[in-house]
């Protein structure tokens, strides 16, 4: 069986098979033989060649949150066929990381902006948060105006990336 996980923009394929009570797990070019024990739901221990690791797992849809050695790793399980769609869509849109009120709109539709340009300022929990351009490119559409309430996850800005290989408008 093979799974695909995506973490910080990188893909990690993992091969797994059961061998009696153990699992054989292939990560990158290495294969691990793993004793697995579920102490209680979501709370597991791995024994890999005598080295014991305790983990907590929380799962929702394709999201995986795993706590190991005091760190939390958040990543996604990528289902076959889904990979293409989600990765093509992301770069062209900026969604709101927070719910709040738009206090300043710093770019117009059609405007060419540099990476880091502040497109929107959102006030939430009495603090101001700036939505910056993740790359240089053209603003296709700013979906909200000053005073609008935005919810976490909504599409704020559509942008077209200035392709590295494509002809640049100015040097």
């Amino acid at each position, binding site marked *: 069986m093979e799974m695909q996980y995506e973490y910080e923009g990188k893909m990690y394929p993992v091969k797994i098979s059961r061998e009696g009570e153990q699992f054989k797990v292939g990560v990158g070019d*290495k294969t691990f033989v793993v004793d697995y024990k579920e102490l209680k739901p979501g709370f597991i221990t791995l024994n890999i060649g005598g080295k014991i690791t305790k983990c907590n797992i929380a799962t929702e849809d394709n999201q995986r949150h795993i706590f190991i050695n005091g760190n939390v790793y958040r990543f996604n399980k990528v289902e076959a066929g889904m990979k293409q769609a989600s990765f093509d869509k992301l770069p062209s849109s900026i969604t709101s990381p927070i719910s709040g009120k738009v206090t300043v709109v710093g770019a117009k539709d059609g405007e060419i902006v540099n990476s880091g340009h502040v497109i929107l300022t959102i006030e939430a929990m009495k603090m101001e948060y700036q939505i910056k351009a993740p790359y240089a490119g053209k603003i296709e559409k700013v979906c909200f105006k000053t005073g609008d309430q935005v919810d976490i996850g909504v599409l704020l800005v559509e942008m077209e990336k200035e392709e590295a290989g494509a002809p640049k408008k100015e040097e």
Partner: protein
Amino acid sequence: MEITKVLVANRGEIAVRIMTACQEMGIATVGVYSDVDAKSPHVEMADESYPLGDPTPSASYLNMDKLIDIAKKTGANAVHPGYGFLSENSKFAQTCADAGLKFIGPSAEVIDSMGDKIAAKRTMRKAGVPVIPGFTGEEKGETIQQACERIGFPVLIKASGGGGGKGMKIVHAMGELDAAIQSARREAKSSFGNDELLLEKYLAKPRHIEFQILADEFGNVVHLFERECSIQRRHQKVIEETPSVALDQNLRDKMGQAAILAAKTIGYSNAGTVEFMLDADKKFYFLEMNTRLQVEHAITEMTTGIDIVKWQIKIASGEHLTLEQEKLIQHGHAIECRIYAEDPEKNFMPSTGTLKTVELPTGMNIRHDTGISQGSKISPYYDPMLAKLIVYGEDRKDASRKMEWALSNYIALGVTTNIPFLRAIVHHPAFASGDLDTHFIETYFKSWAASTTLPPEVLIAAAIDDFKHSAIVDDSENSQAENESHSPWKQVGRWRIDS
């Protein structure tokens, strides 16, 4: 006046904290909650709880009419405002008094006298408490620009109407001044409904040292020693500790006496905090007075054994302060970390969502004050502080080690938290050496990011978990869930489980 029933006009951990104190004292409690808080622990904790409706603060926890109405209807005879919300609102204190409800805190006049930061400094300067050089509006004919030239850059702009880092800006040169003023006014207006600003000398490497005060209604005042709150981000305290390594007994006594003088000068009663800045030369300056319980009061409780909230209630009931300054001692060392739902790697953007798994570090001398629990939804309406993790140790090293252990065993999955960031701070050599100042985070953690290396164990755990669950789906006809009785204790264990 005997306090028999307290309406707690707050939410989250501080509402739980106050209700516990009331219940231990045999006092009935009334909780209030906005729509998004209907399932919060403070709602369960209260003897009775009433809805405030719309979660917008102005419609709920800031809505005086609703709160007074619920207090009257339920027969409460006192109101505890907690911190934040209406805790430093003199109009609310007065409205409570007018309605025959004891406001657990100082009088409206005292709140007013310290609420205006400019007037507060003026009062303290007159009383002989050292005050930082600044522009407080009393300097005749001086513009804010002229004041900057007089004081010298860098200067700090602050909102006159409130604290908590809202509306604060540091300005390093005249060219930045106008933009900073505009932004500060906007934040101040939105937070406090008042866009008046003040200005002061920005100190190099200052420490934030504050003294906890308890004052009864008969003029007796004691201090419960200092708290060092120098580790701040955007003027929001992140980690607090007591005692401060910067104070020796002599300086501690001097600052404590100054704090008592400040409280006596304004006829203070109830619990309060006098905040000072301490510069590299160990000179201290009055910063402001917080006329309420503070978030970080717990570390003082750990090192003095005194229950500050119970004393607030006793003082409000008209009891005399029986604590004597000479008999008060500090023992051990306490540290508090504020656990926030925020992403340290993304400019500390607040994080919202559902807390799916919560497993807390427990053990001796670990105190965890929280108003959330597994399954809680973290909404964007209120402060993103999830909890306060407080530890006590024999000494600073022991406490630091315990804090590091506790943070490493603090499992909260579902929303992004600042726990890895807090761990990095507590682990840092500069923290261990005690060499703190209010620029600590800026100096050492300016663009901090957790390691992005994914240990293979993470992928192995995920893959095995997914493998096992995909296997179950295949033969799920036979799922255990069907055979289990519908008893509440089946809540232990997820229902589609393979072991």
